[in-house]
């Protein structure tokens, strides 16, 4: 009796079904391909913002650097400057003092990109004390 049972088990071959596994693998592959989405690496530019009713220049021992941001670009020391010119000017200041306060004054109709560009130039030159004013 016991011998008979043993023989019957011997005859049952375990067959591994590959098709479902391949299906699952393909599905996972498609899933990862479809959902793979590269994301931009982001940066942050921290600024100080004076209270809305404050129009006075912050009290510092060092004369603050003022960058005007207009509708078409930057004005530095009374004349319109390009991005590279502004960078050179800020770099000259930063060479001696990176603790100087930088005041970025934006006109209301200026595009936000000019403000970001101005702050990026300041960050590039390790100027960390940045404040944004609106005019």
């Amino acid at each position, binding site marked *: 009796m016991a011998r008979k049972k043993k023989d019957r088990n011997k005859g049952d071959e375990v067959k591994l079904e590959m098709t479902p596994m391949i299906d699952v693998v393909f599905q996972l592959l498609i899933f990862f391909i479809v959902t793979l989405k590269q*994301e*931009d690496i982001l940066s942050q530019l921290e600024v100080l913002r004076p209270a809305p009713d404050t129009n006075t220049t912050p009290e510092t021992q060092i004369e603050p650097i003022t960058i005007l941001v207009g509708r078409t670009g930057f004005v530095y020391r009374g004349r319109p400057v390009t991005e590279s010119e502004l960078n050179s000017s800020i770099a000259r200041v930063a060479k001696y003092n990176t603790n100087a306060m930088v005041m970025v004054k934006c*006109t*209301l109709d200026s*595009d*936000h990109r000019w403000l970001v560009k101005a*702050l990026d130039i300041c960050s590039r030159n390790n100027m960390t004390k940045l404040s944004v004013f609106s005019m």
Partner: protein
Amino acid sequence: MTPMIDVVFQLIIFFIVTITMTENRNEDIRLERSIHGLEIKSDENSSPLTLVIEVDRKGRVSIRNVAMSHAQLAGIIDHRHRKYNVFPIMIRADYRTKHVHVKNVMDICTGLGIGRVSFVAVKDPRTPESKARWSN
């Protein structure tokens, strides 16, 4: 039948997963580039209290892609300010938006006693769209 059931299960899993992965930010906002800004680290390192305020091209304000009025925004900031006192605020503004719209958001923050905000920009473009924009 087994393969078909497998496929169906996979599709179900796919939909369940993608439903939870829906974008909770305004995808229409295009950011300016800032190579030298401080890199925003992955979520695990950033403060969970960070409030990201979105300002789109037309000046519409939203948080997690939920549009809101200035009064509602002020309410949210005020509530957080009372609860946590200090928390980081990031302004994710479209590069084409006018400064007046950004000013309005900053004024709400400063009016509630928060004088420090950050602007979000792109440090390293990775998406095809961003790469195309700054390829020249």
